[in-house]
């Protein structure tokens, strides 16, 4: 701890190391960066220079290729894969994230002009697709090869399932002809593997029914409560050739095989809801996942403002009601207990009454859900309404009377002030701990990111953020803000997986680069993720993917040399080694090896500078940076470094359980 490692800056490094700017200047130009090796005299004459990291011309050429949608009139007609890709294109599939394998399907989807991204592991690509969907609300796909590629995605499919992400999971699945023969290679029964992790799944076995099952998939992806759909393609399906449209069964358009019709609230139910809200003194709307996925933020705003209803956001993404709004309760946890009516809208993952959500035992409850089977689960209701979230909120916006609730709004403001003071107190304690240890406390790192993104020269609405990890994720959630739809991705939502954070933000970053859905106004902006040294392990290689596609990410890695659960070994000292890593690992160096920039910081001032530099380079050059924030594991201990780890109140900022 006593030795202060050298700090890198963009402007320059030690004489023996060239600047990263110099390194990146060569990226894409094909120049040989002989300078990245120390030209030691012994080897200078005989050792060939080490080539620089660069984006191969084959990649840029490939991305510039024109699209090619299959046609029955083409020579040889269309393959099953092309029929499937055309249907996906018709359904506006937003993007595909994959690793090679399931070749015919991914090739056909890419050729069809659907934005496609190839990464380093199937699991991370599934999370990238999940992240893309979380910040856009759109259906996205992931794909892996049969067997190992597919099973690599399992954790990430489970994550998407708990977040109700409309994720289309695609995998090849050998051939029907070789079923049950342990035929080499990668044979497996894949559909049972996702049992409990999907909304719908099917292994296709009849080539001529490929469109029929595509329709099944999109009906489930775009109707009701979203969730992953898993399709397996044996070789007989994707290789089958159709020379005429008549050979494909049930081949009709999406307008015929599914409907955009949505359930509207029964007039009696809507009237009762309006009456209950109007009678309540302190009503709050919990605006869940469904409000975002149905893009219902405008009627939400109108209804809330018309009747002075508090709104708290919840779900795997935030921003569908802006944090800074006077009616936002997302930073006012102390006021939750005052609400006398809670209106859950599109809240798909319901808590129990004693699990974190701090509402009053006497509060009445209305829940609005697009389907009826979940109404009343976990949280007994005074009124359950089957309705599309947008339709219900439009009904409220129309039927609620104008009303002012000054006392309630004042209580929200007071509670926000109290919460912000708590954060400030935690930060000030963190500053002392940081200065005493020459490392960076999590609260200090989070406050710096907060001030940089929302209090400086950057438009506070610009940057999409994500967070994960244990100590840092828990803290970052308290400090990151959402001022517009799709601005904050709650990576560990509900399933609390450690690791998919960076991969998710590669997907979110791709969505921002494309300007998809609510990201249109912020097209091209960098994204930022705060994660842990434990978490980064799982998807760090996707920095290569980010570099390859010029998706600029600032990745803050809180490096406390341990799994966040290390206190679980305190009572059993012989177990402690299993919870710890080598100390002072250099994730920044690893990032450099993957074509990103690396920054190493131990102090508040270093971190502030690193953020500024990284953001500028991300915005101007679309180059990602990993900032390695050196910390101590003991910061999670309330006894040694108060306040230690803090449980976040829910719902609102910091919520991850439901």
């Amino acid at each position, binding site marked *: 701890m006593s030795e202060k490692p050298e700090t890198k800056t963009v402007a320059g490094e030690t004489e023996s190391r060239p600047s990263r700017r110099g390194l990146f200047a060569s990226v894409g130009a094909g120049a040989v960066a002989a300078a990245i090796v120390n030209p030691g005299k012994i080897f200078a004459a005989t050792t060939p220079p080490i080539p620089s990291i660069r984006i191969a011309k084959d990649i840029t050429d490939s991305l510039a290729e024109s699209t090619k949608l299959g046609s029955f009139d083409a020579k040889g007609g269309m393959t099953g894969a092309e029929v499937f890709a055309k249907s996906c294109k018709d359904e506006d599939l937003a993007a595909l994230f994959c690793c090679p394998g399931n070749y015919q399907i991914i090739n056909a989807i890419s050729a069809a002009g659907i934005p496609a991204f190839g990464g380093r592991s199937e699991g991370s690509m599934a999370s990238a697709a999940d992240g893309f969907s979380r910040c856009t609300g759109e259906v996205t796909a992931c794909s892996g090869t049969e067997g190992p590629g597919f099973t690599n995605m399992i954790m990430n499919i489970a994550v998407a399932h708990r977040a109700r992400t409309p994720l289309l999971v695609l995998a090849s699945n050998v051939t029907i002809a070789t079923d049950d023969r342990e035929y080499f290679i990668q044979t497996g029964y894949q559909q049972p593997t996702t049992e409990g992790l999907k909304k719908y799944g099917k292994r296709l076995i009849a080539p001529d029914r490929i469109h029929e099952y595509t329709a099944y998939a999109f009906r489930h992806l775009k109707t009701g409560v979203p969730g992953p759909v898993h399709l397996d393609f044996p070789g007989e399906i994707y290789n089958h050739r159709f020379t005429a449209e008549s050979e494909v069964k049930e081949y009709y358009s999406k307008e015929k095989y599914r409907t955009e019709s949505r359930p509207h609230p029964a007039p009696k139910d809507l009237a009762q809801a309006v009456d209950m809200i109007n009678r309540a*003194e302190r009503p709050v709307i919990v605006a869940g996942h469904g409000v975002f996925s149905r893009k219902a933020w405008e009627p939400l705003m109108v209804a809330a403002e018309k009747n002075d209803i508090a709104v708290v956001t919840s779900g795997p993404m935030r921003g569908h009601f802006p944090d800074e709004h006077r009616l936002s309760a997302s930073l006012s946890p102390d006021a939750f*207990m*005052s609400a006398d009516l809670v209106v859950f809208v599109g809240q798909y993952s319901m808590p*129990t009454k004693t699990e974190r959500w701090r509402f009053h035992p*006497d509060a009445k409850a209305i829940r609005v859900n697009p389907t009826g089977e979940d109404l009343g689960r976990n949280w007994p209701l005074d009124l359950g309404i089957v309705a599309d979230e947008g339709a219900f909120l439009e009904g409220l916006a129309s039927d609620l009377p104008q009303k002012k609730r000054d006392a309630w709004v004042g209580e929200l403001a007071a509670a926000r002030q109290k919460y912000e003071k708590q954060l400030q107190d935690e930060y000030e304690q963190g500053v002392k701990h940081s200065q005493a240890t020459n490392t960076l406390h999590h609260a200090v790192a989070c406050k710096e990111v907060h001030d940089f993104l929302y209090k400086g020269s950057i438009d506070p609405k610009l940057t999409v953020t994500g967070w994960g990890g244990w100590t840092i994720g*828990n803290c970052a959630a308290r400090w990151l803000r959402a001022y517009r739809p799709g601005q904050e991705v709650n990576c560990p939502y509900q399933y*609390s997986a450690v690791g998919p954070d960076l991969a998710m933000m590669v997907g979110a970053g791709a969505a921002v680069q494309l300007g998809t859905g609510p990201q249109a106004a912020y097209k091209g902006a960098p994204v930022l993720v705060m994660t842990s040294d434990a978490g980064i392990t799982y998807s760090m290689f996707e920095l290569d993917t980010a570099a390859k596609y010029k998706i600029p990410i600032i990745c803050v890695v809180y490096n406390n040399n341990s799994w966040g659960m290390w206190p679980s070994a305190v009572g059993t000292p012989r177990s402690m080694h299993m919870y710890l890593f080598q100390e002072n690992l250099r994730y920044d160096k690893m990032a450099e090896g993957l074509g990103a920039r690396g920054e190493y910081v131990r102090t508040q001032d270093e971190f502030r500078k690193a953020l500024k530099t990284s953001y500028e380079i991300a915005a101007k050059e679309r180059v990602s940076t990993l900032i390695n924030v050196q910390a101590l594991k003991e910061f999670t201990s*309330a006894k040694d470094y108060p306040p230690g780890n803090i449980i976040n109140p829910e719902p609102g900022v910091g919520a991850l*359980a439901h």
Partner: protein
Amino acid sequence: MRTKKRTATGVKRQTPVNIVTAVLEGYAEKAVFRGFSAPSQRGGKATYRMAWHYDRPFEMGLDVLEKTLQFTEVLPGVPVRSAMYRELRAFLKSQQSPQTPEHRRVNPAKARVTLSNQGGSVSLKLTVKDGDFEYAARKIVHIVHEIFMVFLVDGPYYEYMVQQLGLDPDRF
């Protein structure tokens, strides 16, 4: 599912025990409690058992003559001379303070709330001052709920919750 006991005339007699029982049954029906047993009662005293926070068993006593309701162990393992116990007392005091919104506050004209600590086991007692047992029953439930949902969550008690209440450490 609970069914309410009625008299021969079909009208439930408004005794303090019946009133408190009805209030607590109402909370059970709203899933505030995850489990609830009808009271055992004798001579103006009743004992209620419920499964509640952290799925732990809670016991609340009602003494009609003494006009008290008491949760015998709200929190375990809180040393009497600890900072946590001091903070808990301060939290309870704040529940009776004019700074707390009226709809959350304990009305001093109607009830008085006190803590006691025996060997680290913290009890919460509410004394009814105006005979309003419905208010008393609701208020003592509110206070216990706030202790778990606000006091413990907002304070530096993560490790306490893991060690004393069985919080799964993964569930931060």
